[in-house]
């Protein structure tokens, strides 16, 4: 760029923040000229204008996407609830023939899968997208289009998976899809489950990226980590958990689908496979998943309770301890779902012990809530009613959890209705009730001052609370009497009839409660225009919202010095409204938010955020095609869709990310000038790559775990004399890919020192080396026959995994080359190259590990 303001060492002399920080009281109380203020508001309004007409659906603002997301999740939840009611009708009397066995199997599988994958996890993402920026006084999420892409993926995948039930082809192997039942299942049900839900898991990881970066980098200036709203702590922990919990399931899905589609025998014992590997991978995901659902919901309680008690939370650090502690310990519990699988007792003991240990941090947060309520002046309100219900139900579910963590008791009640009762108590108490509290609490925030009805709210609460206990409390007893879960009917001689009838009747009471709730949620409330801005007199930032609604998120980004700024910083609202804090204006008419430092939230730079676009919807649709067509074994259209999805994403990146700014720095107000561009660890995009690749590395580690698993589980793995990967070609692959990584790394360094041509040459060489390395990799295993035994199958699976990464890595290298040639990447503005280099650190690591595992390890193991 000829007008580059920092020659001649462009890449190494970067603009820095300039000006005073923190602001003084005089600076903050300086009045703003009303005309100037109005002009700024007009500019902001223009930049954040909402698309109208059909283009409404191209919106990417967090409040729009969050609202669609949560309403869609609610709809899926209601559908799954209807399936539950139909099952309850079938079970009401012995020997009933309302549903046949096959349909019943489809219903319970879809009920569990939909409640978990289409409601509980997406609902957390939806609520976070909706409220997190407001908690943090940010204009929007750091990557609005990524949220939108995640939402459209979720919508398409959800309709596909849930719709299958209407065509009698739904999955029917239970929500945990145990092989060999499901690998041998005829029909496409299992494929719908695997591919449809894998697709939705991608959306979850996208949300995790968004939320972690949001919490770490998009806090308002001054909001140090010890001042963050507790919700942000929980979201941070849960985002981290998603990165370690979801990838093992994605790896498992990958192996599972390879077995279903191509007969690679990962779970087939006759050819060296082992169905237990699926159980491990599923539950390494499945148990943390319970806490991934629970923590953000209890985080809502952590926001509601201080407001209800009208005082700050008692023991802020203790809540952080609790969230982080649960986050870790929840990964040591997965085998308690597998106590009856014949593992050594001593191994069961480890998981039993960890299951008991997790009670400690979980209990601490409940005591913290109780303490806050005890020392505060509690105001009776609907949200508090729901929180009280949540705590009562959750504690009961937790107590049966303590019982179930004891292995011998677990053996006795395994797969009985006792389990059904336990898990519904934890999920209703730990998720449904707190989320309902959140809906009542945040409704005036979502709908800008309108409130939900107190009378209808009480009705809904008591119907659901009584209905729930009447339906599920007896199930403990039904289970202890021996009724197994997942049976479509039972004989009259079992004496379970009256208990089941009670549960069925009560389940309709729950349904009536939800009907009241949904009506209250959607009924017109025109008479409530212009009500209070902060009806609960809460202390956190989201209640500084604009009533009536403005699209800009916040008028300006405040300077925060307390945990409950609306209580503890008296002039905050007035100053926010008059635009006296940061970023009260948009100089070039772009959407922008502030990026701050991780620990102390010092302002670092202005982040341009993306606006409405069709491309995200298009990208999601093609991604959907790439996952959905393989269900029907239609591979050519799937490949075409995959290619178009990549083209869409590239177009999206090319046109809107890491744009060279109109000016190197910008005035954000209060005398502060900040850079308009960041690359490397300062940039949110770099963090997004880091987080995504960490999740990716977890999935890869799960595949490598498979290698060791088969080695410990079987006496002849790898089988003696079995052909493996070609040694010389594997070594060549390792060398070529190491060189490709090196070329990328060196290119990044010299590019910053203005040696643009040499860097372009290295990037071109890197693309070539990647292609060559990919070719030698495939040639190394071309002679293996993966259908014959699990060993060649696993080698090939690792190769497929790596080859896909090499393809993406090569695209990344070529993208940087193209950006450089097109003048869209310069030594000063080199975020693309930084991000691709970071991605290559991970790819190179996976490449070397893969080569070692397929080339060297078999020799050592044998």
């Amino acid at each position, binding site marked *: 760029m000829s007008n580059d303001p920092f020659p001649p060492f462009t890449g*190494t002399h*970067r603009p820095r923040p300039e000006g005073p920080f923190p602001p003084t009281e005089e600076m903050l109380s300086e009045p703003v000229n009303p005309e100037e203020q109005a002009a700024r508001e007009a500019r902001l309004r223009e930049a954040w204008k909402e698309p109208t007409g059909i283009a409404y659906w191209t919106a990417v603002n967090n409040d729009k996407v969050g609202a669609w997301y949560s309403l869609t999740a609610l709809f899926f939840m209601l559908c799954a609830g209807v399936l539950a009611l139909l099952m309850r009708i079938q079970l009401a009397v012995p020997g009933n023939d309302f549903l046949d066995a096959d349909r019943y199997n489809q219903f319970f599988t879809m009920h569990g899968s939909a409640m978990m994958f289409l409601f509980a996890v997406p609902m957390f993402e939806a609520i976070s997208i909706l409220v997190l920026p407001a908690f943090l006084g940010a204009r929007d999420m750091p990557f609005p289009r990524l949220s939108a892409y995640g939402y459209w993926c979720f919508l398409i995948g959800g309709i596909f998976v849930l719709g299958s039930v209407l065509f009698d082809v739904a999955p029917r192997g239970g929500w945990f899809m145990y092989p060999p039942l499901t690998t041998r299942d005829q029909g496409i049900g299992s494929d719908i489950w695997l591919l449809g839900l894998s697709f939705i898991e991608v959306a979850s990881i996208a949300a995790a990226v968004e939320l972690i970066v949001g919490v*770490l980098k998009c806090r308002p200036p*001054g909001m*140090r*980590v*010890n*001042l963050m709203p507790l919700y942000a702590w929980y979201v941070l922990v849960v985002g981290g958990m998603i990165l370690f919990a979801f990838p093992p399931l994605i790896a498992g899905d990958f192996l599972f689908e390879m077995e279903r589609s191509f007969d690679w025998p990962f779970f087939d014992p006759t050819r060296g496979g082992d169905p237990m590997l699926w159980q491990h991978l599923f539950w390494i995901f499945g148990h943390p998943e319970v806490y991934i659902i629970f923590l953000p919901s209890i985080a809502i309680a952590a926001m509601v309770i201080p407001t209800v008690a009208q005082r700050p939370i008692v023991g*802020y*650090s*203790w809540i*952080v*301890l609790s969230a*982080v*502690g649960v*986050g*870790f*310990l929840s*990964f*040591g519990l997965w085998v308690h779902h597998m106590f009856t699988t014949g593992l*050594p*007792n*001593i*191994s*069961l*003991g*480890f998981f*039993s*012990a*960890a299951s*008991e*240990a997790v009670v*400690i*941090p979980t209990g601490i947060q409940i005591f913290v809530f109780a303490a806050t309520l005890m020392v505060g002046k509690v105001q009776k309100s609907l949200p508090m009613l729901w929180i009280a219900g949540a705590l009562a139900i959750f504690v009961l579910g937790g107590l049966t959890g303590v019982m179930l963590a004891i292995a011998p008791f677990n053996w006795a009640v395994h797969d009985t209705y006792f389990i059904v009762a336990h898990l519904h108590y934890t999920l209703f108490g730990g998720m449904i009730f707190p989320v309902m509290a959140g809906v009542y609490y945040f409704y005036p925030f979502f709908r800008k001052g309108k409130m939900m009805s107190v009378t209808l709210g009480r009705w809904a609460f008591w119907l659901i609370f009584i209905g729930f206990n009447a339906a599920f409390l007896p199930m403990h007893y039904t289970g202890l009497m021996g009724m197994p879960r997942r049976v479509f009917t039972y004989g009259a001689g079992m004496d379970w009839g009256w208990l089941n009838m009670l549960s069925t009747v009560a389940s309709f009471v729950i349904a009536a409660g939800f009907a009241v709730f949904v009506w209250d949620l959607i009924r017109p409330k025109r008479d409530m225009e212009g009500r209070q801005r902060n009806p609960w007199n809460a202390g956190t930032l989201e209640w500084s919202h604009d009533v009536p609604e403005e699209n800009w998120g916040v008028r300006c980004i405040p300077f925060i*010095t*307390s*945990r409950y700024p609306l209580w503890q910083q008296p002039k905050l609202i007035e100053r926010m409204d008059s635009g006296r804090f940061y970023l009260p204006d948009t100089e070039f008419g772009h959407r922008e938010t502030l990026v701050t*430092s*991780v*620990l*102390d939230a010092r302002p*670092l730079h202005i982040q341009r955020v993306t606006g409405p676009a069709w491309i995200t919807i298009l990208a999601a649709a093609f991604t959907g095609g790439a996952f959905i067509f393989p269900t029907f074994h239609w591979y050519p259209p799937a490949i075409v869709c995959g290619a178009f999805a990549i083209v869409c994403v590239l177009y999206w990146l090319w046109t809107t990310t890491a744009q060279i700014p109109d000016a190197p720095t910008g005035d954000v107000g209060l005398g502060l000038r900040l850079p308009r561009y960041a690359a*490397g*660890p*300062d940039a949110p995009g770099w963090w997004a790559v880091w987080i995504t690749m960490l999740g990716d590395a977890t999935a890869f580690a799960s595949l490598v775990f498979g290698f060791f698993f088969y080695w*410990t*589980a079987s006496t002849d793995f790898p089988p003696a004399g079995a052909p493996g990967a070609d040694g010389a070609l594997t070594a060549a692959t390792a060398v070529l890919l190491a060189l490709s990584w090196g070329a990328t790394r060196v290119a990044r360094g010299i590019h910053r020192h203005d040696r643009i041509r040499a860097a372009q040459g290295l990037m071109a060489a890197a693309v070539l080396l990647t292609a060559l390395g990919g070719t030698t990799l495939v040639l190394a295993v071309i002679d293996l026959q993966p259908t014959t035994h699990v060993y060649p199958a696993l080698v090939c699976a690792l190769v497929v995994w790596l080859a896909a990464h090499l393809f993406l890595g090569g695209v990344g290298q070529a993208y940087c080359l193209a950006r450089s040639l097109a003048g869209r990447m310069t030594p000063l503005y080199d975020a693309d190259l930084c991000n691709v280099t970071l991605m290559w650190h991970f790819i190179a690591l996976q490449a070397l590990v893969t080569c070692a595992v397929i080339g060297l390890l078999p020799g050592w193991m044998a």
Partner: protein
Amino acid sequence: MSDRKEEFRTGVGSLMKITLAPWIWAFHFVICYGATAVWCARLTEGGDTDTLQIALIAVTVVALACIAACGIVGKRVWTRGGFGEDGEIPGIDDEESRTRFLGHATVLLSIVSAIGVVFVILPVLMIGTCR
């Protein structure tokens, strides 16, 4: 450039430091589980666990020592500047209060992690067989 690196280092590094004790718990857990799996599947005849017990007790002692070290360092950071001695209520919006908070969280997480480690070693002490 260098203070940018510092920002990166002090930022996430300090935040991750509070999770050091839980990470030790996690490694201890994985070592116990992995060692037992390999021992029982591959290394022992007849299911005795004597050698395994000794090895895992040693691992546990090391893990507890490391967690104790985390806790002590955390305690020092938490109480730095005489907090808790003169009865003065400290501020909340300065660097010291942030550091103290991270120290407090470190101490609390160390305690929970230590309990977790002790819980996990109990089966090894109580169940003397692979079967």
